[in-house]
């Protein structure tokens, strides 16, 4: 079974530039998550989709971050404009849904804003 795919693996941009990350979840997984993991901290949920609808985006900085999941499959996360404090690993995860179903993570995209 293929895992969660993310691209790119690494990205370096200057502050005020924009960047986009892509995620392809495990086939059949209805729930998709984007997490931000700053160095030394645990993953922090940015947004959660159930199929192509947003379930929770309460911690997404909506003035600069946006995400979409067209057709309930692939998802993109965009930052525009980026700030230095956005430097982190952005993790995508997917699950079948339901409280007892574990989430499977991709390898993440390491973003460095200079």
């Amino acid at each position, binding site marked *: 079974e293929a895992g969660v795919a993310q691209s790119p693996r690494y990205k370096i941009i200057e502050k005020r530039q924009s960047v986009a990350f892509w995620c392809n979840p495990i086939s059949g997984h209805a729930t998709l998550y984007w997490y931000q993991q700053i160095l*030394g*901290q*645990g993953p922090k949920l940015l947004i959660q989709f159930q199929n192509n609808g947003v379930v929770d985006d309460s911690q997404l900085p909506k003035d600069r971050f946006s995400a979409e999941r067209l057709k309930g499959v692939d998802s993109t996360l965009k930052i525009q404009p980026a700030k230095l404090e956005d430097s982190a690993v952005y993790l995508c995860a997917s699950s079948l849904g339901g*409280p007892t179903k574990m989430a499977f*993570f991709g390898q993440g995209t390491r973003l460095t804003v200079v």
Partner: protein
Amino acid sequence: DQQVKQNSPSLSVQEGRISILNCDYTNSMFDYFLWYKKYPAEGPTFLISISSIKDKNEDGRFTVFLNKSAKHLSLHIVPSQPGDSAVYFCAARENNDMRFGAGTRLTVKP
């Protein structure tokens, strides 16, 4: 808000001994708890979980204990192996909302 806390950033144990990783939480609405393991340059991988209606779940060398009254859970690894060296994240769920601790870096020395 830190609803899930792992107060030990690192732990070092000798191969063959027991590793005990601890996690505390504040939200009594969490009903499912998970441990993830993370190697460098990889995403977290699921290790073991426990429902809030249980107090223990065992899978091979890994056992998770849950103390709901203390809002505390722990992961025991017996015996510890060098390949267990990784960062371990505790996670807790309320419905589909999953919150993570900051992680504990476990080093198992040969």
